């Protein structure tokens, strides 16, 4: 059985258990994981809506003609339909089965036309059902993530080689993306930052040129068969200053504390707290608040920023088979923004770390 078939079988079983007659699954280039899970299509342009029915009927609607052509070539076992007015196209089909138990995921991204209360049918929220499937990985999914993590390591080596004073940020991305394309990896999420205390976060590349002494941060998130694995690392152009080395030591201690806390039953909050307590220990508790940082890690899978988010108010227990990244990325007042993160699988006894790039503050020639 292929990966797509296994996923679809799992989804169908979950629908049967929940008494769901039809699942409406939405996707776009930003939030494509639900659609990829259901229909095995990695959408890039426009809207995509899949309709999976308990009777086995399965169709995907796309409002981009080129995506329609792609889906015909890239999917199996699903009827592909081009509908420029996708909301009306799907709506007509839902009208036909209006008396059935219909759910949608992720419901909040579905075009409002389809969820308007004046519709003949009712669309309940099936997002949690799919979130559960997305978080709890099959062995074959974990294997994709292992391969993606290995690719992330390789990609970071390319990044290190490319990072030299005078180069604009976007050229580094060009090198890494070319490397991934040559390896058959069509998708990657990548942001970066370069500079010193003026840098508060990572963004898409700018024309800013790298300079000697810069801290250069990046997170690479290549995908294998749609599964994204992430690595976060920081390098220095030239020799690291004592302040930069000291700051890095804090990040290393925080990440390792977080990883050490990973085990089935530990909550996302436990992991976040383990990381944040290290910062608090050194009097830098302010820098683990949302003024300076977003999350202390997150899930990985068919989306680059999946659930669970590692935050001190997220009480979701980890389970074996979940894949996450632990990354205490944040601003350090002495040196600027720093990142460090490794992807891992939660195992029965703890964690299997997937990314293998050394956990050091890299120094590259300047």
């Amino acid at each position, binding site marked *: 059985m292929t990966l797509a078939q296994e996923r679809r079988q799992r989804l169908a079983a979950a629908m049967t258990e929940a008494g769901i007659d039809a699942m409406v699954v939405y996707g*776009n280039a930003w939030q494509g994981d639900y659609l990829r899970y259901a229909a095995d299509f990695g959408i890039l342009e426009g809207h995509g809506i899949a309709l999976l029915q308990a009777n086995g009927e399965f169709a995907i609607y796309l*409002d981009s003609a080129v995506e329609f*052509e792609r889906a015909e070539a890239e999917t199996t076992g699903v009827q592909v339909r081009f509908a420029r007015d996708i909301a009306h196209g799907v709506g007509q089909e839902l009208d036909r089965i209006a008396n059935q138990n219909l759910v949608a995921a992720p419901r909040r991204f579905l075009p409002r036309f389809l969820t308007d209360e004046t519709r003949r049918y009712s669309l309940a929220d099936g997002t949690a059902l799919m979130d559960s499937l997305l978080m709890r990985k099959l062995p074959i999914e974990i294997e994709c993530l292992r391969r993606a993590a290995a690719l992330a390591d390789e990609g970071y080596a390319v990044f290190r080689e490319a990072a030299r004073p005078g180069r604009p940020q976007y050229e580094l991305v060009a090198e890494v993306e070319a490397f991934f*394309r040559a390896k*058959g990896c069509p998708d*990657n999420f990548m942001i970066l930052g370069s500079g010193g205390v003026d840098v508060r976060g990572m963004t898409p590349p*700018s024309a800013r040129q790298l300079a000697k002494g810069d801290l250069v941060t990046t997170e690479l998130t290549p995908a294998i068969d749609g599964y994204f694995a992430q690595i976060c690392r920081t390098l220095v152009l030239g020799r690291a200053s004592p302040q930069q080395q000291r700051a890095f030591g804090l990040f290393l201690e925080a990440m390792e504390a977080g990883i050490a806390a990973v085990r089935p039953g530990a909550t996302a909050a436990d992991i976040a707290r383990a990381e944040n307590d290290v910062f608090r220990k050194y009097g830098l508790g302010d820098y683990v608040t949302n*003024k300076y940082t977003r999350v202390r890690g997150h899930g990985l899978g068919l989306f680059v920023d999946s659930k669970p988010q590692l935050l001190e108010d997220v009480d979701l227990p980890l389970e074996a088979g979940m894949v996450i990244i632990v990354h205490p990325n944040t*601003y350090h007042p002495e040196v600027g923004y720093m990142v460090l993160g490794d992807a891992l699988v939660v195992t029965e006894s703890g964690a299997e770390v997937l990314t293998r790039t050394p956990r050091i503050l890299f120094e590259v020639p300047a």
Partner: protein
Amino acid sequence: MRRGLIAWSKSELPSAVFEHRIARARQAMAAAGIDALVLYTNNSRTAGVSWFAGFIPYWSEGLLIIPRQGTPALVVGLSRRVQFWLEATSHVPVHNAPRVGTEAARIIAEGAPGAIVGIVDLNGLPTGVADDMTAAGGGLRLIDATQSVQQLRAAAEPCEIALAAAAGRIARRALSLSRADDQEIGPLLATAEREARSLGAEEIYLAAAPDLERSRHLRRIEGQAQLGHSAAVRATVAYKGHWVRMTRTFRVAESAFAEARNRFADAVAMLPDPKGFAAASSWLIEGCRTAQPLEPLAGSLVSEPVALPPGALVSVQASYEIRGAPILIGAPALLGHGGEAAALLCQPDFADAARAC
């Protein structure tokens, strides 16, 4: 996920351009009785907000508010930690909020309680954003304002034409420098990717038919794929918010490709009349009307074509059979005004990588 150079070039897109567009929108709003115009943006529906404000999200979502009076506002789900980037890429002031619908409704109601809010593509607005706007109170009445904005931007402005030509140059150079010398397509795609991003492309999507004898469908390549006797690659390039597609067929006789090019150019020149494409196995015309950068407007697949407006920028692609050889070709074009012939904005001639459009 957008990974390319997202930057506002004030020389290529001066502030005056945005101010003029906003002024025209306000005239249309007055005529339609709309108090505030709202446009939604996310990673795949960038073109509406970027046309008025220059902003392009690489992540998350946003709402642009253009009130009839007062300063426009861009509400984004991105955090203040990237404020330096937001302010460098947006023409209008940025507000950060985790729930953009709630914040947008609050801003509008503060300025005009009970306002009539014109939303571009109201039907397509995400349910969560629409629900938040409604739940925020303020007595706002949401109506669809899609047509008003479509009419404003039907004919391309000189700066849009220049930026689309720049995107075309990047696409052409990327495809020109790519070589189908290997057994597998990976190195070819890698070259195109590197070249486009090094030239400042905001994004490049590559779709390929590695073996045209097996399939003419252009798909995204995951893993490796063997190159056949002939292959086609389509590069979709975004530059400063402007999207074009160009398609090249590799490993075909130059005479066959030249013949396809001539047929293609002749068919384009007849637009908006599509009869020139009767000889094509398939054809497609895409352009931007509101938020989707390349929306299908007409083609062999499109049963209800949209009338192509004079002066519109489009991307055209076609598939031909030339002496038994399948040839795919594509390039951006500009429709004529007042009876003028349409013309290719960038020639699909890949022999000279350095050639200008």
